[in-house]
Structure formats: structure tokens, C-alpha cells
């Protein structure tokens, strides 16, 4: 597969994952803001912005509707949902021949919807509906991707992009939420803490899954364990890293070259770290540091993939 094509598929997938993540987090945050006693709207907004990786130009100005509008519709703002959808479509357009017609039509529909009068007027009555529409559209795209695209290298690059973006975003989210989670007392009967904890889980569509594993008895240790270390839940970091590893292994298997040890080792190290560390050990140590390491390792894996599959030097390729 052409390196440029792999690059575009990878970023198409990352941008869609990003759009979905942003949409869901904004939705959760706006719904939490309805309960004003727990925390101020400003602090919640700041937490949201931090969890999105601290993009510029989203400082709290008191007008939630306008800010939410920016975060969803401002196609010039790099953190906005529309920006991510546009970028995903632009990437898809550049590899139009590699993806299936169904995928393209699905993505195109989402793109046109984001730019339609319908979405704008919907946002005035209910931003939650708009965000649900975005998440739906992306879910449909993923379903169509899995059922209509050949599961070759391109598909694995899509999976790679999805899981790398997800692992990174979830680690950022946990890093931002984690101090708050541990500053407040463990038991709080007012119900506000419960709302916050459910909010965190919902940011990762994890609430129902959590309940299936641990019942609705929410504790911060379990929440952290679930989102970090669960091996069966698709939004957990451990699951995502496993997804990264599977995608890279599959890409290697379909290719003829042996990948650099550094890449295999980098992914193996992150995978092992999550496999062989218990939640007790993480909590006993520096949790923030642990989460930060995950992000750093994700970035490193991204760089290695780039220098090996996408931007390799001609001279080294000719030498083979």
C-alpha cells in the first residue's frame, strides 16, 4: 500500500475518533452543568478543555451556548468537532479509491450534515441532539468500515489510528479527572459525586459496561481500574493498546519487511506495563506520572510508525 494512502487512512481514523471523543465529552459536560451545586460551570468547562488536550482559544467567557457552538461548529478551530470531521473527510477524499463507496457515502453524509442548516437549527434547540447525531454518524461509519472494507493493510491502519487516538485521549482524560477523583472524600451521600463519576464513565461510554462488571457501586479505584486495565472493554486503555499491537502485528504480517526492533519493543513495553501492573500498585505510586507515561509512549509509537512506514528515507529503502 502506498505510504501516502496509509498516512491518510490513519489520520482519517484518528480525526473521526477525535470528533467522537470531543462530542461525547462536551455532551457529558453540558449535562453535568445542569446540576449547578456540585461545581461551577467554569470549572467544568476548564476540565473539559484540559481533557481535550488544552487547545487554545477556548477560555471560559461565561456564554456556554456560544462556546459550545465554537467547539462543535467552528470549522476554523482545530479542536472543534466540525474541524475533525472536515479533516477526516479530506483525508478520505485523498484516498477515495481505497475506501469503499459505502464508507465514503457515510462520511460524506456526516460532513454535509455538519454543514447543513438542519444541524444549525437543531443546535439552537438541543445541542445534545446534534452531538448524538455526530456520535451516531461515526458509529455507523465504523460499522460500515468493518463490514464493507477489505481487512487488509488499509483497514489495519484505520484500526491503528483509532486505538492510538483512543488510548491517548483516555489517558489524557484520566489524568485530568484523577486529582479531583481523589481529593473528594470516598463516600459522599449528596449524590453530586456520583454524578461526576458517572460523567467520567460516560465520557468513555463506560457506565453500563462498568455496572455489568462491578454493579452500580461506584468507587474511584474501580473506575480507574476499569478505564485503565480492563481487557475486554473497547474504550479501556489496555484494550486500546492491545488493539494497537494487533494492528501493527497485522501490518507487519501483510508486509515483506521486518519492522525495527524499536517499534516492536515500544509497543510490547506499553502492553506489558498494562498487563503486569495492578491497580493497587498504580494507586500506591504516582498515578499522574503513570498516566503521563502512557501518553508519552503513544507519541513515541506514532513517531516510530511514521519513520518506518510513511516517511522513510529513499536511500535506506534502496539498500534493502
Amino acid at each position, binding site marked *: *500500500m*502506498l*505510504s*501516502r*494512502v*496509509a498516512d491518510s487512512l490513519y489520520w482519517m481514523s484518528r480525526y473521526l475518533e477525535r470528533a467522537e471523543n470531543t462530542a461525547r465529552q462536551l455532551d457529558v459536560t453540558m449535562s453535568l452543568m445542569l446540576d449547578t451545586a456540585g461545581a461551577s460551570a467554569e470549572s467544568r468547562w476548564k476540565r473539559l478543555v484540559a481533557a481535550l488536550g488544552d487547545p487554545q482559544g477556548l477560555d471560559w467567557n461565561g456564554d456556554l451556548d456560544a462556546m459550545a457552538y465554537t467547539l462543535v461548529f467552528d470549522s476554523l478551530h482545530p479542536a472543534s468537532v466540525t474541524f475533525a470531521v472536515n479533516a477526516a473527510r*479530506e483525508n478520505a*477524499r*485523498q*484516498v*477515495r*479509491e*481505497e475506501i469503499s*463507496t459505502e464508507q*465514503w*457515502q457515510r462520511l*460524506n*453524509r456526516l460532513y*454535509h450534515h455538519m454543514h447543513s442548516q438542519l444541524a444549525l437549527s437543531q443546535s439552537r434547540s438541543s445541542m445534545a441532539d446534534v452531538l448524538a447525531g455526530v456520535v451516531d454518524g461515526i458509529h455507523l461509519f465504523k460499522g460500515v468500515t468493518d463490514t464493507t472494507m477489505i481487512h487488509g*493493510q488499509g483497514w489495519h491502519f484505520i484500526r491503528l489510528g483509532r486505538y492510538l487516538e483512543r488510548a491517548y485521549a483516555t489517558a489524557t482524560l484520566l489524568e485530568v479527572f484523577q486529582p479531583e477523583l481523589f481529593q473528594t472524600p470516598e463516600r459522599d451521600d449528596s449524590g453530586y459525586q456520583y454524578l461526576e463519576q458517572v460523567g467520567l464513565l460516560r465520557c468513555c461510554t463506560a457506565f453500563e459496561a462498568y455496572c455489568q462488571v462491578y454493579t452500580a457501586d461506584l468507587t474511584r479505584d474501580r473506575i480507574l481500574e476499569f478505564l485503565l486495565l480492563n481487557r475486554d472493554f473497547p474504550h479501556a486503555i489496555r484494550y486500546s493498546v492491545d488493539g494497537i499491537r494487533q494492528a501493527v502485528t497485522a*501490518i507487519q504480517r501483510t*508486509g*515483506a*519487511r521486518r519492522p525495527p526492533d524499536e517499534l516492536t519493543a515500544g509497543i510490547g513495553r506499553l502492553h506489558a506495563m498494562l498487563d503486569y501492573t495492578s491497580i493497587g500498585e498504580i494507586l500506591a505510586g504516582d498515578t499522574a506520572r503513570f498516566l503521563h507515561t502512557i501518553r508519552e509512549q503513544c507519541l513515541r509509537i506514532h513517531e516510530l510508525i511514521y519513520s518506518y*512506514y*510513511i516517511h*522513510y528515507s*529513499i536511500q535506506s*529503502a*534502496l539498500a*534493502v
Partner: protein
Amino acid sequence: MSPGHPVEVDKLFGDYPLDHAFDEMREADGTLRQHYRALAETLARLPQEELQRRKQSAELSFLTQGITFTVYGREEGTERIFPYDLLPRLITAQEWNRIERGLTQRITALNLFLRDVYSEGKILNDRVVPRELVHSCKHFRRQMRGLQVPRNVYIAVVGSDLLRMDNGEFVVLEDNLRVPSGVSYMLANRRVMKRTFPQLFQSYGVRPIEHYPQLLLATLRSLAPEGRPEPNIVLLTPGVFNSAYYEHTYLARQMGIDLVEGRDLVTHDNIVYMRTTDGLKRVDVIYRRVDDDFSDPLVFRADSALGCAGLFNAYRAGNVTVTNAFGTGLADDKALYAYVPRIIRYYLDEDAILPNVETYLLTEEQERRHVLANLEKLVVKAVGESGGYGMLIGPHSTARQREEFARQIEANPRNYIAQPTLDFSRAPCLVGDRLEPRHVDLRPYILFGDKVNIVPGGLTRVALEKGSLVVNSSQGGGSKDTWVLESQ
């Protein structure tokens, strides 16, 4: 109105005007042409709402499929759907037969001409075509002199523009021998049409065109360099900002070949490679949708980043086939066009089956004087341009535009030709809830590998604006599906 129509048909036509121009659907006296009868009756039977519903669903289908083109020179809204008219244009088996023979003859002769001009130059020595005219052509590429082209095929993919004149005969307006586009619209129109009017389509017995990508692939494969039995074939696109990008992706997907950009290619030791996730992979055949000028900065325009440095040398060495060959624009130069009937006679010893449009060469003193005196009746075209750019349409021009062109013609007569304003045929289009006549042309697509192959039909382009003669998509044109009927 004429007798014999159901009353609904008359209603549909309203005050549909007929004049001396050939109408595709109706005889001069207003009766329906035989082969259009079933279409007109089907339309007349459909309730107006149903017709509009089908029109909308067809348009929506173009939008969600992303069948769009890019218009240059506009900041916003540059991506547009290609306007589409719901009614098919019908061509009888007999008419098609003549077109097919005519085009085969023409393309064969033009290919021989290119080969001759870039090797011995017999036709120039025999003074059938002036040497000066060939060498002054903007698209003449001296780098091609003496270069052996695989199977002697210079023009593997051609789209020629035909018009139908008032006597019902088809004539050739121009040949597109560089990178003709539009074939994806032909295929998309057919797909949408089959969905919009399934029963009508079935009842008509229309010859299929859907196998075009397969034919194209076979053509490209037949041109692979010697000793490459499993050639790696790619389509080279200028990239996503090109107006025909949709078509490039479409064809690549339909053929199952890689769509590459210049930046995906590297050359080493006169071999072209593409960068893949698996390292470098050798490229054998390039279906080139990038103009000559932008293909190789070492040989052509040095400031272009769209092509691949070293491509031409690899081509010259015979390690890669690039098609169409470089320098083929020579033979679709609008001044050389006037010589095509003579070229056909010279190489094939036959008369041209499809006539040319009368063309004035402005390098000829007498013809130039005639043209300058009659600018308001004529169409003036720059010889090296395409897509409807650089044109003066006399009857629709202002005195100022005519002065401007007169000055340019005097300054550089070689750069222009003039033709009479053509009253070419019109076909009915659905405008609002009525049928109205609009000017149409026809661009069949010709493939030339082992042999000449033309899928029956092509793209019928429509000048959607009332009275307009310009059918180019970049200038507000649209298109129709073209049905070539099986012989009865």
C-alpha cells in the same frame, strides 16, 4: 401542435420552440422522431410530482456519491455537483455505426501522424502539413523525437467532441489527445439513469458501457514494457485539487490500481518506484492524468512539484510506459485540426468519414482578412487551450471584446483559429416542469491498445443556459446519459 400525440405529450412540450437547428427529439414539423416516441410517452404519463421526485433523488445520489468537480478561480464553494439532466439522449444503431467507423479512422490516422512527426517526418517532407505549423505548436515536444513508444501507440485514451449539424450529420469539433476527462460522469449518469427509469431503460434495448474501466485496464496492460508480464499499473493524478480528481479516484478504484501522486514516485537508475508501506515498489505503466508540462521538472516545467523528477528519462529508457505519450497535444492543436482530413487521406488513403468543421487559419493572409472583417459572426479560439477558455463567440460578444481579440490575432495569428458559429443540435431538457431545447454535443471515449475500442455512447454535454453554445462543465455546462440503441 401535430396530430398523433397523446394530449399529455403536447402539454409537456408547451411552447417548445423549433427552428433550423437539428432537434434530437423532433422532426422539423414537430412530430416525434420514431426512437424518441416511447420516452416522450413515458414522461407524459408520469405525474409532475413523480417526475420532480425522481429528479431530486437523482441529484441527491450525485451529492452523496461525492460526484463533484472543482471550479477554478473561486474561493468558496469550489466543489460542485456536475449538473445533470434527467432525459437520456438517444442515438440509433445506424448513427452510432457511422460515428464508430469515423472515430476509428480518425484516431488511427492521428496516431500514425504523431509517430511520423516524432520520427522520420515524411508528411512534413511531402509538404502535406507545413513543418512550421508543427514546430510552432505549443504542445510539440522535441524531447520525443526518435523515441520508441510501446506498440507505437501515442494516444491510448482519447475523447473527441462531436456536434450534430442541421442536416443531421455528426462532425468533429475537436480531438482531446492529452488527458480527456468526463468518462466517470458517463458511467455515473448511466448508473443513476438505470435507477431512475428502470423500465424505460429495459424497454429501449440500450447497449452497455459499464465495462469501460475493464477495457481501459486491458489497454494499459497491453502497453506494458517488454518482460514485465505482471505489470504494476498506476494512475498518476495531480492530486485532490484537480478538477477531475473525483474521476481519477473513481477509475483507479474501478480498475483496482493504485492512484499515485508525483510525491509517491521516485526514480533511481531510470526505474520508477512508488513509496509503499512495504518499501519501494517498481512501477511499469503510468496512466497519466497530469499535463506534459507538469510531469517531470527535469525535462518540462522546472517549477512543478506535481510530477516526478527523472520520469522522462525512465520513459525514454523504456523502463516505464507513460500514456498518453508526451507531446500528443500536437495533434489536437486547433490549427492542425484543419489538416486532419488531409492527414487521414495521406496515411490511410481514405476520405474522412466524419467531416471537420470549417476552420480558418489566421496565419493565411486571405483567411485572416476575412475573419477580422467578420468577427461578429465567427467563433475565435486560442489553439492550445481547452475547456472553453480563451474563446470569443462572435454573436454573443461586445465590440470591445472583438477589438481585443482582433489586436491579439494581429499580434500572434498562429495562436488563433476561427470557425463559423455553429448551430449544432439541441435536445430536450427538463427545465422546471417543462421540456426545453438545449444545445448538446457528444464526447465518445476511444481506447487504443491492441486495437481501437469505443464504448457505445459517451458523455452528452449540455449547455444548460438557454441559447448558450458553451457546454464545458467549467463554464456552466451539464450532462445527460447517452443511450446507443441496439439495432432492431
